[in-house]
Each structure stands twice: as C-alpha cells, then as structure tokens.
C-alpha cells in the first residue's frame, strides 16, 4: 500500500462469501502491479486444473504509484487464460485503479464460484456479494446502468462487468470497465462468467494523507508538465492511435482481409482522419490522466423507416479499426462503429473477435464450413453478416459458434484452415505485420501481445535488420515493461516515465530505490511469469506459427520461417540464462505464504528509519 511497507490484499471466496485481508511485507520486492499480481497468481494457481475451474484465482492489482502521478492509471488482471490455456494478463484503465487505491487495496484475489449470479461490491468500509440473478443475460451497458442506479458514490466508483459472451464461456470474452475501457485480451470475461460473477463495483472514498507534500508535489508537477506542455503525448489526444492506420497501410503492415494483404484499398475511409472528421464527438480520459486518449465516435443509425434514428457511440482505437475494419474488409467508419458496438454489448475482445471472423470468412469461402454452420453468409466487407455472426458467437448459438468461441487456433484444428488462422501461440494477432520484431515478440512475449515487448516498434525504428539485435531488444524491453507495469503506467506514457523519472517519483513517496533495483525488480517479475508459464505447460520453442505470416509480405518484406524460429530459439536461450541467474529473494520468497510471513530484505525505506529489514 502506498506510504506503507506492506501490500494490502483482499481475498474473497465467491463460494462462501468469506473474505480475508492480509497485509504482507514479503510482497514489497515485487513493487506492485504486475509484479504483485504475478506473485499472487503463482501462489494460488492450479496448473492441473482447467482455466475455468472454480478453484482458479482471478487477481486484480494496482501499482506502486497509482493515482499519485499522472498517467499511472492502469489495473492489471491475472488469471489462467481460457484462450491460450496459459498465462492470462490484461490491463484496463478507467477509474478502477484509483478506486481500488481509495478503497484501500493493492490487490483483490478472487477464488471459488458463487452458487448463483452475483456482483461483488467493494468499498473502503464494506465488501459484499450481491444478487445479480436478474442481470444474467444483460449486455454490458445495461449491467453498468443497473449497478450505477443501485449503488451510491458516482465519481468515486468503478463498475466492471461482463456481457453475454462472458456468461457463455467465449474464450476471448472481455470485461468492460466504466463503459469505455476493457480488460480485453485473453478471456478474463469467461473466467468471471465461470465464477457466476457478473460485475464488480469498487467505491473508493477513504482519506489518504500525504506524508511529504512539498517533496511529492514537486515531482508531480514536473511529470504533469511533461505530459501537458511537451509533444510527447499529443498524438494520443489529437486523432489518437487511429492516426497509425494510414502510415501502417502505406508501409504494408496493416493486416487486411484475414492478412491476405498488408494494405487495404479503402484505407482512406477508415483512417484516423476519416474517423476524426466524420464520427469523433468527444474525448475522455482515465482518472488521473491529463492527456485523454479515449476517442468516442458516433454514427446515426436508421433503425426503422420513417426517419427513425438513434445515435450509436463507442470508443475506438487503432486496434479495433484493424481487427473489425481492414481485417474484415469493412469499408466505412460508420460500419466499423456498428460492429464495435455489437462486440462491446456482447462483451468480447475486439481483436480476437475480428481475427476469428477473418478466419471464418475465408474458411466459409473455401467450403470448410457451410451456411448450416455459420447461419449467415460471411463475406469480407459485409458488416450486416458480421453483426449477426457476432451475436451467434456471443450466444454460442450452435456447435460451430461454440467452437469459434474457443479461438482461431482451436477452431482451425477442427475445421481446417490452420495456415490462415492468424493467432500467435493461441492469441489472435495484433494489428502489426511489421516484421520479425512483431512476430517473434508476440510469440515469445509472456502474454503473446504486441505490448509485451513492443516488437512492432523495434521493426518500425530499425533501418538495417539484425536478428540478434532484435532478439536482444525485445528481451530487454520485456522485463523493463514488467517493471513499468508495476507502477502501473499507461504504455502511452513510456517516454514520460524514463528511469530517472520513475526513481524520482517513487522515492518522493517513501521508496528508496536505485537504478539497479529497477532492473532487478523487472527481472524478478519476468522470472515469476516464466515460472508460471512453464507450470502451465508453455514452451517457447514449441510455438508453431500459421504459414500466412511467411507468405504475405510484411513491412520489411517476406519473412523467412527459418529465421523466425531461429530467433525464437535465441530468445529462449536468453530466458534460460535469466532463469539461471540467482535472485537471493527468489528461493526465499517462493516458499512464503500469507500465513507464514517471513521477514525479507525489503527495497522500501520505512519513513525516517533507513532501510527496513
């Protein structure tokens, strides 16, 4: 807990409704955020059980600097992913992190399964499981509204909830956070659904005194100034991430038509500028972020004859425009918004959903699946067909849609077409066919996301390709992000929070850290994640990538299969070496449990007392 020398964890057993609170000093060396969550997951996971078994835990954690400094806005969720069957790690912004801090918890650990649908209400003076039977089946928006109207505390409250897809066990079901943000990737929604947990409402209203206001506020102001008076963050507020649509397309890195191409003919109608001109109505921020990158797009839908209109508004970003736009051949921003709206209401990860539909469209035209299975013809560019298919998918309408709901890797293993089922180690690909960095980066990355190590960014900045340099860069970036994801920083602020800034910030609120400590923390966390992945059965060298990655030219031309696998092997040698490095804390920490607290060399300075022991 910020200002204290322990982590405060709330454990909730959904089966019995029993709660337990633990204040743990031994978790301080993990800093917070993903470090804390990884350790808590390692302690409570069950590698022998299915991802949706009731004994599997869900962990939410906030970071070491949450809310206290600008843009440290994220909450991490960790779980066993029903999509990849291994490490599940997902981040969301919104108000959740601030409210968890103000409710008084660094982390919430959920286990068990409620006998009937419930929602969990957490506040600074109460924890309760409440009846959600009537909400079962409701879409994400209606669920949010129902809880908003029942619970007090607007403004200091966060409501996270699942839609029908999460209830129906779609492996890539998402969790909607405060209407416009999500724990999108890897299926947290399905895990919540498997626990009969429809939603969580967190209300944070406690008082939290600042220990040294002048010291802290000086650093706050410096960071705030960097965020607002420099151009480091301006692109995210301006047209937002969709500004990348056109340059990626121009360089051939925009996955299009199930990645048959890296360029989309109609790109100018779905570009960042197109959305900004035609649909953008508003920009919003996560709590504590002065930038405001959330872009709300609106379009007018005629729902009936006789000039019957409604306004549909959704938040949009680059990834959604790729997955539900170019990847499916959708030619207008209005249609993309309509599809996003459906994905939002049903509660699925936009990327996995779009990529799975891309596979289905191609499999359908190749005759591997038929109308009886798809129930609606699937064709690139046909948004109406996709909207219907999304409803069937979220509902698990028939056998085929239930299989599709288990992800592109699984569904292609049953129906064929695995050479164009565009997943990387079971997680559907991100919107970057930029080269070896993106592909290898996602293959070896802890959660198989482009954000594990920013391989796509390495591709875009590299003039001359050198496989060893790429491998080293993504390796270093992976454990660096383990550290920054312990703060938890929004990745858009990675230029703001260089190491010097991170040290200044943390040391102004009571930590006593040096540059080397940050490296050690990053490595410690990465090792923890690698141990979890190993326990879940993941092996880097066993990853098999769909052929199409090597057929469709990337931004850096055609990728060579042998080179890719050689790079994965080289990366695995680096992780082997990392695992062999000794962290004196590792062995000791591994054997610690909440009931047997052991005093370990901490990294935090107790106020005015020097190094704590």
């Amino acid at each position, binding site marked *: 807990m910020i200002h204290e020398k322990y982590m405060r964890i709330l454990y909730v057993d959904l089966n019995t409704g029993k709660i337990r609170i633990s204040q743990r000093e031994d978790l301080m060396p993990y800093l917070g955020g993903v470090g804390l969550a990884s350790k808590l997951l390692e302690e409570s996971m069950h590698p022998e059980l299915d991802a949706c078994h009731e004994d599997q835990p869900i962990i939410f954690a906030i970071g070491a600097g949450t809310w206290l400094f600008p843009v440290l806005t994220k909450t991490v969720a960790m779980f066993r992913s029903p999509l990849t069957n291994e490490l599940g790690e997902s981040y969301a912004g919104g108000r959740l992190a601030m409210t968890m801090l*103000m409710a008084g918890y660094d982390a919430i650990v959920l286990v068990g399964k409620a006998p009937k649908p419930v929602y969990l209400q957490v506040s600074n003076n109460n924890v309760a499981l409440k009846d959600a039977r009537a909400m079962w089946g409701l879409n994400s928006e209606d669920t*949010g509204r129902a809880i908003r109207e029942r619970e007090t505390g607007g403004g200091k409250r966060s409501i996270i909830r699942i839609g029908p897809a999460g209830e129906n066990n779609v492996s890539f079901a998402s969790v909607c956070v*405060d209407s416009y943000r999500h724990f999108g990737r890897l299926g947290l929604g399905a895990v919540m659904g498997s626990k009969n947990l429809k939603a969580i409402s967190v209300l944070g209203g406690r*008082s939290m*005194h600042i220990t040294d*206001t002048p010291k802290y506020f000086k650093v706050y102001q410096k960071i705030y100034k960097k965020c607002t008076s420099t151009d480091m963050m301006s692109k995210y507020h301006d047209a937002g991430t969709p500004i990348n649509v056109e340059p990626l397309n121009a360089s051939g890195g925009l996955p299009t038509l199930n990645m048959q191409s890296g360029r989309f003919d109609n790109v100018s109608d779905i570009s960042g500028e197109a959305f900004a001109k035609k649909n953008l109505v508003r920009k*919003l921020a996560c*709590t504590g972020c*002065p*930038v405001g990158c959330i872009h709300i797009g609106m379009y007018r839908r005629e729902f009936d004859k006789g000039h019957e209109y409604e306004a549909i508004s959704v938040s949009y970003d680059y990834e959604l425009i790729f997955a539900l736009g170019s990847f499916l051949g959708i030619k207008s921003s209005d249609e993309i918004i309509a599809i996003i709206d459906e994905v939002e209401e049903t509660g699925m990860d936009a990327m996995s959903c779009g990529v799975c539909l891309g596979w289905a469209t191609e499999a359908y035209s190749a005759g591997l699946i038929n109308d009886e299975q798809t129930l609606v013809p699937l064709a690139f560019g046909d948004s109406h067909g996709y909207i219907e298919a999304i409803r069937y998918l979220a509902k698990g309408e028939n056998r085929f849609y239930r299989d599709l709901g288990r992800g592109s890797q699984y569904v292609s293993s049953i129906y064929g077409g695995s050479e164009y089922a565009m997943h990387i180690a079971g997680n559907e690909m991100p919107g970057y066919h930029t080269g070896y960095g993106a592909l290898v980066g996602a293959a070896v990355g802890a959660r198989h996301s482009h954000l594990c190590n920013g391989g796509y960014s390495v591709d875009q900045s590299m003039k001359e390709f050198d496989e060893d340099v790429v491998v080293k860069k993504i390796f270093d970036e992976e454990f660096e992000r383990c550290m920054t994801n312990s703060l938890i920083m929004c990745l858009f602020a990675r230029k703001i929070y260089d190491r010097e800034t991170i040290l200044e910030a943390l040391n102004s609120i009571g930590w006593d850290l040096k540059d080397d400590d940050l490296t050690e923390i990053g490595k410690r966390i990465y090792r923890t994640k690698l141990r979890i992945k190993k326990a879940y059965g993941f092996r880097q060298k066993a990853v098999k990538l769909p052929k199409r990655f090597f057929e469709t030219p990337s931004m850096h031309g055609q990728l060579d299969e042998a080179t890719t696998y050689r790079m994965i092997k080289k990366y695995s040698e680096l992780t082997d070496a990392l695992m062999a490095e000794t962290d004196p804390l590792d062995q000791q920490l591994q054997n610690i449990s909440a009931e047997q607290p052991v005093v370990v060399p901490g990294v935090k300075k107790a106020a005015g007392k020097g190094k704590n022991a």
Partner: protein
Amino acid sequence: MPKKLKASEMNKCIGCFTCMNICSIVNKQNHSLSKSAIKVRTSGGMTGRFVAVVCIACKDPACMEACPSGALEKLPGGGVILKPEKCIGCRKCEKACIMQAVFFDEETNTPIICRHCGSCARFCPHQCLNMMEVSAE
C-alpha cells in the same frame, strides 16, 4: 479586482479528475477525492456529460447566512472562507447551498468549500476551469 473560479468551459472536459486531485493535494495534503472542494461528475455514467459542482462565489452567500457560529466569512467579490476554529460541524451551510457545492469532511467534521485559490484551474489540461475577474462588491 478579485478573481473567482468559473467552470465555464466544461464542454472541453475529458474527466481526468486532475482538478479534484490537485485541490485535495494543495488544500488538504490528501489524495482523496472526498477532500476536494470541486467535484466533477457525470450524469448517467461515463456516457453522460461532465459537470463541475463547485462554489459559484455568491455575492450574498446563503451558506454564511445559515452558519450559527460565524465560521464562514465573506470574501471580496463573493464566496466565503472557513474559519475552522469557529465551526461546530452542524452542516447547516451544506443544506443552505442550493448549488450543492458545500461538501462535508467527516474526518475533520468541517465543511469543504472552495476558497477560489485557482490551483485546479492552473492544472486543468483543457482550460475548462478559469479564474475570472469580478467586481469587489
């Protein structure tokens, strides 16, 4: 001429809550939104518009009139300043404010009323909040 806080351009608000954070830090040395004298709210969750609830600097303050112990003193140009040593924590000021801009700090048992220091406006990233000159009467 005195300057008063006006939430005049809330159409630009992105809901970052920096104003509330800054108010709590500067005036209460606290991180809690509950300590802030300005509240940014939405009606209908995140899909609704943002509004700022904050003292509008009445020239003839009802809160001051309601105070039985003289703990609220009028400021030049409108609004009040709290003299905490005179406050009895009766919450009559809170009820008297028809703008609902008087909040209450349960921890200290005193009202939270904006003193128009301008810190929130200084940190508003989109100039939704502004300090405007008003006549001194």
